[in-house]
């Protein structure tokens, strides 16, 4: 979980030069429960920060996933289509959703680091 940044909608991004790996947090996958279906965007699709780019469906519900930083989709984790349970089993590694070419690094300021995210979850749980 090195250098991950989180959104308040429970996505994470790991920045590697100008590429961001994106997935959902461990908290998000455990709240969703067993994920059975993943709908990912196409390579080349462009999204602005915090806009919807994917849909995850668990046995309970469909959940929209929002992109933590603006960017262009450069790669998708195709394996998830037939192995959606990887998001539950390994949300920060095998369960990554997409890679993006980051458009604006200043947007990082709108995200939480790991400690701040952990505090945010605790507050959410108390609600």
């Amino acid at each position, binding site marked *: 979980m090195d250098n991950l940044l989180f959104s308040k909608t429970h996505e994470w991004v790991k920045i590697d030069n100008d590429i961001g790996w994106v997935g959902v947090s461990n908290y998000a996958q455990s709240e969703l*429960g*067993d994920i059975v*279906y993943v709908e990912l965007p196409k390579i080349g699709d462009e999204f602005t920060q915090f806009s919807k780019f994917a849909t995850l469906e668990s*046995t*309970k519900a469909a959940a929209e996933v929002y992109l933590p930083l603006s960017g262009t989709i450069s790669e998708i984790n195709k394996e998830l289509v037939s192995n959606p349970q990887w998001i539950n089993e390994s949300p920060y590694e095998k369960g990554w959703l997409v890679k993006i070419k980051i458009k604006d690094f200043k947007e990082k300021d709108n995200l939480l680091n790991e400690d701040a995210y952990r505090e945010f979850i605790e507050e959410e749980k108390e*609600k």
Partner: protein
Amino acid sequence: MLTDNSKKTPLYTNHINSNAKMVEFFNWLLPLEFSGILREAKACRSNCLMFDISHMGQIRIKGDNSEAFLQELTANDVSSIKPNGLQYNLFINSQGNIIDDFVLYRLRNSFLCIVNACNKDKVLDWLNKRKFNDLDIVDETENNAFISLQGPNSQCLLENVVGVGLDDLSYMNFLDLDLGGVKLTISRSGYTGEDGFEIICPRYYASNLWEKIKEGRGRVIPDLGGLGARDILRIEAGYPLYGNDIDETTNPLEASLKWVVKYNSKDFLGKEKILEILRKGIERKRVGFIMEDRGVPRKDYLIYSLQGSVVGKVTSGTYSPNLDRFIGMGYIDINFSYENTPIIIDIRGKSFRAFVHRYPFIKTRVKS
């Protein structure tokens, strides 16, 4: 999320101690899942799964005329229930639509209706408005816990726990048992399509009994199941859920529950309307379907013909871990209700191919 006035079953503390994820279901706090919905749904068909179903309404009807009363208000033939028998039945209104689907126990001097939690108050009201003077209609829901044990290993496990052989207990029958002074009613019945048992247990002993079964015996240790697995299992078995697949806008003929309606052998409220529907023929029918590819069909999604016209609506759907397919049920134009008819399900604006398939989707293993 959880409101203060939600009701706890006698097994609430057991569930919390087992780290269940709890959910509110028609004002009851119930386990949604324990070890994971998919895992639980698989365990039921390979081992056995124990559920807390204490939220189900228990309505007892006592009095000399209780049989005549129930005959008048229900679709199935109450007179055909043998002593210690159970029957799947429907309360029907004057429009011929379904007020509730329920299981009726013929007890020694009374009847017990196991009704849906969402319908209990409505059914009580319906019955009380029509009751004869000498009848007693009593809501006994909160006197008891109701535990369901389902799956191929449930007989072996339950026999060991209660110390009584269950070979002679056949499907849709029950026996009364005295377990060291505790009176249990054990029926061979369920909502999963597997062999299994449902146990009515006095409130004070429920937590004990749950723990005794949970501990397991020999090599059989049950898995614990929540509402999530229960929903998957009943869809795999093709059983309707009130509020999704049947309600007061559906009649039993279009709901594929014609087998319950004994219009040839008895009179009942709504029979005229049912006969009229029979004469005219139904326009839509509840059918099952299997998705060709991955994609979760959910309640209220529209069903299209290949030509692109709307021909129906999904009422239930899920991923089936036992089939590794996405399955569902819904009402569909009668012309498209035949086996293998290709259909399209609209999932968030995208077209997914599916085909009509008779239920049960799985091979049921209930014992007769």
